[in-house]
Structure formats: C-alpha cells, structure tokens
C-alpha cells in the first residue's frame, strides 16, 4: 500500500461553531431555563414548537422543530405512551425507535436541528432525546441520465437510508459494511462508506477513511465536493471517480472489491477505485447476449477514439497531408474547402463552439422549448453556415460525428473529458499535422500510464498490460468465463461478476 500516494495532511476540521457560548452547558434542572436556552440558541425561530406534559407528577416540556418532525410519530411514540404510563421511568414509557438520555445542552441543540424531539422534566437535569424526524422522499425511479433497455429500473434517491436500504436488500451478505462519517464544519452532512469486507483491500478502506476525515470544507453541496477532495490527481483531465445513480451498477462494483460513497440528500454514489474502462461499461452489456454485448462495447471504444482523434486527424489531413486521401476524395474535399477563407482550425473551433452552445442551451430548457433549439441549432445553423461559406461541409460531418461519439460514453464525466481533450489535439494537428498528432497522443497516453487512483493503475489492463484483464474490457466474454478467470488469478475469496483483475488488491 506504499503505492497509495500519501496526500498532504490537511487540517482536521474543528468543532462545529454553532453555539456561541464558549463553555459547554449542562442541562439545568429547571425546564424553563432549558427551553429558553435552546430557543436562544436557535435565534427564536418561529418553527419551534413546545408542548406541556405531565409525567411522574412532574411538569415537563416537549420541544421540537415543527418543520423537521413527524407530528403523527410524536403522538404515537411519545405522547400516547407517556399518557398511558403516567408514572415510572421515561425510558420505559417511550416507544420511539431511537431514544437517548443526554446531559449537555449544546448537544441538545445539535439534536433538535437534526429532527429529534427533546423532552425536559422539571427537577431532572437530563434531556430525553426521541427520534421523530420527518422524511419526505420521492420514488426510486430510474435515473434519466443512465437509462438502460433491460434490467432493473430503480435508482438512488435523495435519501441516504433508502439508498443503503436498496443496496442491503439486493446484497444479502453479512460482509457488507457501512461506515458513517460526518463532514462539514458549518453543516453536518452524513456520508456513508459502503464496502464488502474480504473483497475490498483493508489498506484501501483505511486510506479512504483517512482522506474523508481530512476534508476541510464548510459544507458538502454535491458529491463533486467529496470527489475533488479525495481524488489522487486534481490536475488530470480524466475523471478518477465514477458517479452513478444505478443500484445494480453500484452492487457490481462493490462485488469487485471497490467501495461506494453515499451522501445524504444526493442520489449519486461515488465509486472508486476505477479504471478508464469502468466508464465504458454499462449494465446493458451484461443483459444482452455476450456477442452483442461485445459488439456494443467495441463500438463504444471506437467512439472514444473517434471523439478525440477525428477532428485532429481531419485538420492535419486537409492542412498538411491531403495526399493521404484517395485522389477522388481529395477533389471533393478540396472543392468544398476552397469556398471557406479560414484555416480549418478556426472552422473546427467555430463548429465545436456552436455545438457546445447548443448542448448547453438544451440541458436547462424544458423539453418543449429545447426542440426549438434543436431545429434552430441543427437545421438552421448547420445548413446556412455552409451556404454562407463559413464552414466547409466535411467539417460539419466531422464535428457531428465527433459530437455523437462523445455522447455514446455511458458516463457524463468521461464524455466531458473526451470533448475537452480534442482541443489540444486539434491545435497540435493544425501546427504539425500527423507529427503533432502523434506527439499529442503520446503525451496523453503517457499521462494515462502514470495516472493511479488509490494505488491502482488507471489504464489497467492496457498499462500495465494484462492479457487476462481484456476479457471484460474491449469485449465481454461469457459470464462463466469471467468468473473462471477471476478465480484462477485470485486465490482469495473473491467471486466477482466481472473480471477486471488486480483491482482493489495488489
């Protein structure tokens, strides 16, 4: 595990600065003092509710935040039992699923803002914390950005517990481990690290826990926040963590000894460590017959190459080496280019820019309006740009083909990377032709060769070369074949669905 690059130690996040009082406050014996203190701490917010209670011949008060708690639950698990019991110990009477007795008032403030219900009794310097939080969640519907043809159609939602429930439900295995972390200095965000004990490398789990604990941010907005703090190389254009909203995909990765990170209020699971080829796999490959699955896989890889090589290749051919093309093709290409006064690099940049504009505009608009964008962008611009002589026809073909290829990638992050990478290649091609392209590609692949995520080579099994690993990269062998090959090379108790070898283990 020395392979894992030790990141610079960051400042561990300090205590939350919610309470303004410097010294820790204990619970007062007087109910009124307690209530006043809590109200003060919560700046007399209007959604704090109290209710008087009489129990064990004492006056008590129940305090909770109306907008965070389930009123029905309070009635059922707190008020009714207390009413019935009348006397005795509070902990025996209350039927709430989570019950605690606390002494510190500062902690009580944290509890109440996390949706708990607090009970104070006159003369007892203790606070009773009952679970009554309200959870509103949507259905587990298939994510729009990762649709598949066949297979399970559920997806993660913005509720941590539900997400882990889906995983646990599918993966009935005592070795499935869930570890909770709390991140953020100003706001608690609950993070869950999920992995399979025995499949995931112990050092890997230690390393990821260490990195998670060092995240110094105030609050976590998106999984991208976590991703950027824990990834190995922030200066790489390649995504080193895989984001997915699909439970079946997540489970497949867990069974390969990788880990998943879930965060509260986010439907995205972060999967690591991954290789470049993970981004080109889709559950669909495993639902269709293996021959067709392999065909689709290889088409996806072809799209990877087309998306970032084709524009550069075209530019270098028309600028430097038109003689590479057959003579008939040169004539038609040249006659089209002659009408355009600009160098082909400018043409390409113009077209790529238009394309990105159309794409970006289309994302945020409602479906009915975005159709208009398609017509304006695709038909009007595409056609008239050639008519005007701004861009040549072959360039339109090249850019359109590139755009389609870039969107073939099942992962949004990798698709952006591919779109980004073609620009340096286009510049290199316009300056040095094939030689520039070769050098550019050499640099990119060198970068891939040195890139490692959590101690695993990113471009495995191509670099370092492992023939066995190819069974599930460019093509997909039948599943029984994958299982066999995995068992051959791994003596430990790892039975994986896919056979990317050497991952998560030395």
């Amino acid at each position, binding site marked *: 595990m020395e*392979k894992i690059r030790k990141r610079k130690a960051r400042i561990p996040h300090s205590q939350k600065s919610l309470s303004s009082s410097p010294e820790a406050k204990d619970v007062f014996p007087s109910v009124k003092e307690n209530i006043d203190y809590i109200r003060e701490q919560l700046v007399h917010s209007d959604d704090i509710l109290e209710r008087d209670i009489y129990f064990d011949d004492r006056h008590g008060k129940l305090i909770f935040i109306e907008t965070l708690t389930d009123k029905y639950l309070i009635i059922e698990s707190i008020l009714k039992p207390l009413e019935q019991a009348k006397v005795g110990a509070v902990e025996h009477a209350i039927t709430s699923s989570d019950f605690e007795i606390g002494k510190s008032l500062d902690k009580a403030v944290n509890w109440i803002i996390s949706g708990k219900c607090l009970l104070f009794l006159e003369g007892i310097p203790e606070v009773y914390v009952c679970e009554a939080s309200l959870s509103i969640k949507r259905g587990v519907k298939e994510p729009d950005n990762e649709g598949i043809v066949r297979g399970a159609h559920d997806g993660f939602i913005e509720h941590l517990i539900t997400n882990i429930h889906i995983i646990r439900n599918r993966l009935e295995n005592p070795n499935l481990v869930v570890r909770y972390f709390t991140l953020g200095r100003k706001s608690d965000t609950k993070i869950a690290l999920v992995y399979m004990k025995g499949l995931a490398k112990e050092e890997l789990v230690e390393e990821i826990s260490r990195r998670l604990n060092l995240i110094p941010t105030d609050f976590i907005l998106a999984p991208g926040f976590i991703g950027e703090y824990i990834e190995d190389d922030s200066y790489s254009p390649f995504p080193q963590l895989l984001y997915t909203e699909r439970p079946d995909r997540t489970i497949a990765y867990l069974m390969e000894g990788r880990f998943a990170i879930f965060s509260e209020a986010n439907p995205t699971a972060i999967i690591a460590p991954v290789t470049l080829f993970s981004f080109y796999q889709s559950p669909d490959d495993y639902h269709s017959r293996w021959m067709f699955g392999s065909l689709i896989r290889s088409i996806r890889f072809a799209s990877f190459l087309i998306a970032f090589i084709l524009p550069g290749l075209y530019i270098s051919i028309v600028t430097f080496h038109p*003689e590479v093309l057959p003579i008939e093709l040169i004539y038609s290409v040249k006659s089209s280019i002659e009408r355009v006064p600009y160098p082909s690099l400018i043409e390409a940049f113009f077209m790529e820019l238009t394309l990105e504009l159309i794409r970006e505009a289309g994302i945020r608009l409602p479906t009915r309006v975005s159709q208009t964008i398609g017509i304006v962008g695709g038909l009007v611009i595409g056609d008239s740009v050639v008519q005007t002589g701004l861009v040549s026809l072959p360039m339109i073909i090249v850019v359109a083909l590139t755009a389609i290829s870039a969107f073939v990638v099942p992962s949004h992050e990798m698709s952006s990377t591919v779109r980004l990478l073609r620009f340096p290649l286009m510049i290199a091609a316009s300056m040095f032709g*094939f030689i520039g392209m070769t*050098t550019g590609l*050499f640099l990119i692949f*060198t970068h891939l*060769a040195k890139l490692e995520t959590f101690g695993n080579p990113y471009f495995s099994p191509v670099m*370092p*070369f492992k023939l066995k690993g190819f069974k599930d990269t460019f093509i997909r062998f039948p599943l029984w074949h994958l299982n066999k090959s995995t068992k051959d090379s791994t003596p430990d108790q790892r039975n994986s669905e896919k056979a990317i070898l050497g991952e998560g283990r030395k």
Partner: protein
Amino acid sequence: MNYSIKDKITPNQFLFFILQTQLGVGILSLAHQIHKDAKGGAWISVIMGGVISQVMIVIFWAFLKKNPASNFLQAMEKLVGKITAKGIVIGYSCFFALVTVLELSEYVRIITKWVFPETPVWINILIVAIAAVYLAKESLGTISRMYVFVSFLIIPLVIFTSLGFKNVHFTYPMPFLENGWLAILKGANMSFFYFLGYEAMLFTYFAVEGSDKDKLKAASMGNFFVTIVYAFTTYVCLISFAPDELPLVPEPVLYVLKSYSLHVIERIDLIFLSIWLVSVITSICSFVYLTSIGVAQLCKAKNHKKFVYWIAAVCCVCTTFTLTPHRGEILDEFIKIISYPFVFGIPILLFIISLFRGRKR
C-alpha cells in the same frame, strides 16, 4: 539513488524496455548504410549484428548477475572499487547523453527532409524532446508500462513493410556473398551500431524483479525481436531496389512505402513516419532517462526527476550544433569510435575482473 517500488519492473516490461531503446531512428536508413559495404548480403550483416549484440548481452549479464547490489554504481563499487566505479558511471552517463544527441540530430535530419523542410530546427527538436521528457521524468515502472503499450505499433510497422512484397525481385540482392565474407563482416560492424540500446541493461538490471535467468531471457528476447524487425526491413529494401539504386536512396524504407498505395490510405509513408516518431521518442526518452539515472546515482539524489530537464535541455542545445552535414558526420564517427570501449572494452574487462573476483570468494 535506489529504486523505489514504483521503479520495479517485471521481466516482460524489461524486455520491452530493451526493445524500445534499441528500436530507434536507425530503421529508416539501415538498409542503405549496410548495403554500402555488404551489398546483397546486408541482411546477413544485420543478423550478425544482432548476434554480436546477443553475445554482449550475455557478457553484461555475466558480470551483473548474482550481485547483491541495489544499483549499478554499488555493483561497480563492489567489483572495482569506489573511484573507478564512479568513473565508469560518469563515462556511461556521458555516452548515453552523446547517443541522445546523435539520435536527435538524426531525427532532425530525416524530419526536415521528409515532413517539415521549412520549420525551424529547434521546433522540430522540441516536438520530440517535450514528449520524451514528459515520459522520462516518470518512474521506470511508468516508462515500461508505456513501452509495452507502444510496442503494439511495431505490428503495423511490420505489416506496412511487408506490403512492399507487391513489387519485388528476389534476384536483386543475389549473390549474397558478392563481395565476400569480409564485406559482410564490415557490414556487421556497421549494423552493430543500430543495435545500440541494450546497454540500458547496465542501469536498469537491478530494477527488474525476478531471477537472473528471467532477466537474461527478457533482454535476449528484446534483442531478438529487434534483430528480426531490422533484418526483415533490410531484406525488403534489398529486394525492392536494384543494387545500383540503393546507394542513391538514403531512406529506402520510406521509398518502398511511397511507391504503392492502399485504397483507403494513399501515402503509407506518412503513417509509417508517425509510428516511427514514437520509436524515436521512446529511444530518446530511454537514453535521457538512463543518463539522468547515472547522474542521480552519482549525486546520491533521491530521484532522477530534476536531472531529466537539465540533461534534456543540454542535449537539445548540443543537437543544434551538430546539424550541418559535416559536423553530423564527425559526431557519427566519434560515437562509433567511443562505442567500442563502452560497449566492448569496459564490459569485457569488467567480465574478466568479475571472473577473478568470483574465484577469490
């Protein structure tokens, strides 16, 4: 410097390291140069060159094996004492730097002639130098990974060359022994320089994991592949060009490719040049890496990274001075002369010393 975990490579990676270091600029002009002396028997000369290299690999291996040292400098210190060891490492580092300059200037000569006649020389140098430095500053593990990957490009290289069989006369090079065995030996002496690169063994041997036998096997296989590729291209050139034509074409491989076309791609020579460029980058990268490793060992530095930039910069600047034909020839001759002691003399001497040392123990 000592090799860290990331510097450790497997015997297979070692094979490709040797292969990519050997396979460099030379492949384009090999047939032309050897044909000067050996005429039709040039391909025999090339094979003999490969055999000589193989013998030297065994000699290198003989004094490197069973040495418990962790790097070349330490191994030499055990063998010949501290001061001499330092001298040897300095010598080899300079030698590798000179080979870098030679490869660069040869590359510039060909690229200027074939692709960029108008482009300033320093830009041509930079294209290769940037790529080579970017790789050379990485660990040996990363470099070897990359070498294994780019070695797949040798397959199209060989396929393109074999397309040359379309229009050949097998009688052109015959009789093979036109000028007698002496001429062939002379050719072998010449071809031997095209095989330079297995000296990389000296500096990388201790980073390879595995038994001594595996390491020898790997290095030999690397050399064997290069011999095959070189002999094959030479033979294709010999049967494609009449004996009178060959002295007139300095890069026969490219002319062979230029003469025919596939229906999809018309100018295969341009594709070939692009692939050839990768081989050039890898061998320059190797030599820059080896030089920096030598310097790092001398300076007892932690890693070789910071030396790579300086060494590459110095080599690039030196290259610009070697570009007139006259100076180029002088450099060529000079390196030919000094390779004898560095590739034959010193290793054989070390081998003999190690024999005596071994007996004493």
